C-alpha cells in the first residue's frame, strides 16, 4: 500500500456540505474492473458539461488548483455509497489529503487503504483553511507531527495510532491479518461446536 508521510502544496477549496461518493465518481465509471484511470472522471458532473467539455470555472479545472494534492471540503465528506472508486479517483487525480469537519465512516476507512490522509478539523478551523486555500496559500501537512500549516495557521489534528502507522509504513493489512491465522482457525473450531448451524455447507 502507498505510504504517506508529509505533503506540501496548494489546496483546492470545495465549500459544499455532504459531498457524496456519487458526486465524487458517478455510477457510469463503476463499470471498470481496474483500480486505476479514474482521475479524469473525478467530480465528473461538476467538471464536465453534458457534451463532455470542461466546465472552465469549476475549481479543479482552474490553474493552479488543477494540480492540487489537497482538498478542503464541507461537512460529512464522502457520504453515501461504499464505492472505493471514490478514493481511487481522488488518488488518480493526485489528491492525497482531504480536510473536512467530518467524514462518512466507509469512505474514511477506504482512504487509509489507498494512502490518502483524511484530516478532521473543527468548523472554525475549516473556515480558516478554506480561506487559506482560496487565497492559494501553500499548505504543509506533517503526519508524524499531526499538523496542518497554512500561512499563519497551525492546526494539530487527531488520528488513531494504528491508522497513522499504517499510512507511515504503507502496511499490507491482509498480510498482517494472515499472521493471525492460528487464532482464526481456533475461533472457527470453537464456533463449529457451539453454533453448528453457521457452518452448514452452503
Amino acid at each position, binding site marked *: 500500500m502507498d505510504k504517506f508521510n508529509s505533503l506540501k502544496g496548494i489546496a483546492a477549496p470545495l*465549500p459544499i456540505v*455532504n459531498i457524496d461518493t456519487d458526486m465524487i465518481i458517478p455510477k457510469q465509471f463503476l463499470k471498470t474492473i481496474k483500480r486505476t484511470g479514474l482521475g479524469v472522471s473525478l467530480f465528473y*458532473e461538476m467538471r464536465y458539461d453534458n457534451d463532455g467539455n470542461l466546465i472552465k470555472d469549476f475549481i479543479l479545472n482552474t490553474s493552479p488548483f488543477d494540480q492540487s494534492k489537497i482538498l478542503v471540503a464541507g461537512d*460529512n465528506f464522502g457520504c453515501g455509497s461504499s464505492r472505493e472508486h471514490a478514493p481511487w479517483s481522488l488518488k488518480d487525480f493526485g489528491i492525497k489529503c482531504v480536510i473536512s469537519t467530518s467524514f462518512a465512516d466507509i469512505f474514511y476507512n477506504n482512504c487509509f487503504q489507498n494512502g490518502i490522509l483524511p484530516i478532521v478539523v473543527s468548523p472554525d478551523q475549516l473556515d480558516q483553511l478554506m480561506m487559506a486555500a482560496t487565497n492559494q496559500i501553500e499548505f504543509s501537512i506533517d503526519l508524524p507531527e499531526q499538523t496542518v500549516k497554512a500561512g499563519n495557521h497551525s492546526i494539530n489534528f487527531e488520528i488513531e495510532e*494504528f491508522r497513522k502507522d499504517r499510512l507511515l509504513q504503507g502496511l499490507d*493489512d491482509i498480510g498482517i491479518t*494472515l499472521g493471525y*491465522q492460528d487464532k*482464526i482457525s481456533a475461533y472457527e473450531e470453537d464456533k463449529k461446536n457451539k453454533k453448528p448451524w453457521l457452518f452448514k455447507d*452452503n
Partner: protein
Amino acid sequence: MSNQGPKTLFDKIWSEHLVGQREDGTSLLYIDRHLVHEVTSPQAFEGLKISNRPVHRPEATIAVADHNVPTINRQNIEDPQSKIQVETLAKNTKEHGIQYFDLMDQRQGIVHIIGPEQGITQPGMTIVCGDSHTSTHGAFGALAFGIGTSEVEHVLATQTIVQNPAKNMRISVNGDLPFGVNSKDLILYIIGKIGTAGGTGHVIEYAGSSIMGLSMEGRMTICNMSIEAGARAGLISPDQTTFNYIQGRPYAPSADHWDQAVEYWSSLPSDNDANYDHEIVIDSSEIDPMVTWGTSPEDVVSVKGLVPNPSSAQTENKKKSIERSLEYMGLKPGTKITDIKLDKIFIGSCTNGRIEDLRKVASIVKDKKIASHVQAMIVPGSGLVKKQAEEEGIDIILKDAGFEWREAGCSMCLGMNPDQLKPGERCASTSNRNFEGRQGRGGRTHLMSPELAAASAITGNISDIRDFT
C-alpha cells in the same frame, strides 16, 4: 467495552465475533457471511490473484450480479463494460468455488433482497458486502455493514475484518402508526431529525412498539436507510416475527439445529439496563407521510408541507446548501409539495422492492390508470419476488394501470444500467438516495414510500395517500 454488566445487542454480537486483538490495537472480527456483487468485487479478486492468496471460506460467500444488469432483454447485456463486469463475477466465483446466482437463476435479485429471502441472513451473524446498504440485514438482529473493495479482499482472504467497536445509539419509536404512515416514512423522518451525519461512528438500534410492530419487510426498509443517517449499521432485536420469517427458507438452520439456533437468537436482545451513548425517543403520532424535496436524504418534509425557504436557514452554510439543492431540483421556496408535478415513477430497490411493497402498490392502483404524462416502472427486488407477484396476479393489476413490469435488479435506484432519468426529469422514487445525478445526470429524485409513489403515479403530482380514494 467490558465483558461484565448489561450489554446491548451490538455488544453481544461484537464480543461473540471477536477473534482477537492485533498488535496494532485493532480488533479482528469474524465474518459469518460475505455477500458479493459484480461492481465492487473484481479488483478484490484481482488483488488475491496478484498476491496468490486463496479464498479462506468460499462456502461462507454468496455472489449475485444486481447493480449493472438490464431489467429487459437480459440474455444479452448490450453495454460491453457491464457485460465484462458480470462475466468477471461468474468467472471469479467459479474459480474460487463460490455460490453464484446467475442472471437466468430465479433466485437472482438485489443482494440485500436475496440474503433474507434465501434465509442466508440470520440473527446474531456478522454480514458484510461491498455495498453500503448491507445495513438492511440488521433487521434480523445481524451486525451487517458495507465495506470497500480492499476490505472485500481482506474478508475473502481471511474471513475477518479489522474494526474498532462502534458507539451505541438507540432510537425508540413508540405508539401505533397513524393512518398512511409506514416504515419508509419513519426512517425518512428519523434521517430528517438526526441528519445524514447523525449516526456517524454509531450502530443504531431501532426499538419501541412502532418498530417491533413492523413486518420483517418494514424492518428491512428501516435498517436499509441507516446508512443515509451516517450510521455504520442498523439493528433490530430478533423476535418471533423474525424467527417465523426465517423458518423453512433454503439456507435457514436445518431441523436438527433449529431449536438450538432459536435459543441462541432469543438471548440476543439488549439487556434491559444496557447503556447507550445516545438515546432518541420519538412519538409516532408526530409523523406524517414524508417526502424529500432536496438532494440529501435529510432534506425531508411532510407531504402536507412546503418547499423550504433558504432565508429561514439557521447558518450560512445551511442556507447555501438549500439554495444549491433548490436550484438543482428546479423548485421555488414555498411551493406546496403536492403541487410538484412528476415525470417518472420508480418502484423498487433494496429499500422497497419486496413483495409487501408490490402488494401495497397494487392495492392502490387497482382498476385505475396512471396519469397520462407519467411513465411508471416497477422493478421487483428478486426473481422470486417477481414470481410471487405474478402468482398473486399483481403484475396484471400493475400492467393494466400502465406500469412497466421489469426483471429484478438495482435498476434506476442508481442508474448503472439503462434505466435512468434524463436531465430535468422529476421522479417519485421508492429508493434511498436523492443525490445530484444519482438516477441520471440532471435527474430530480423525490424519495417516498411505495404508497405515496403509487398514489402519485395515478394523479401525476406528489400526492398524500390520506387524500387518495
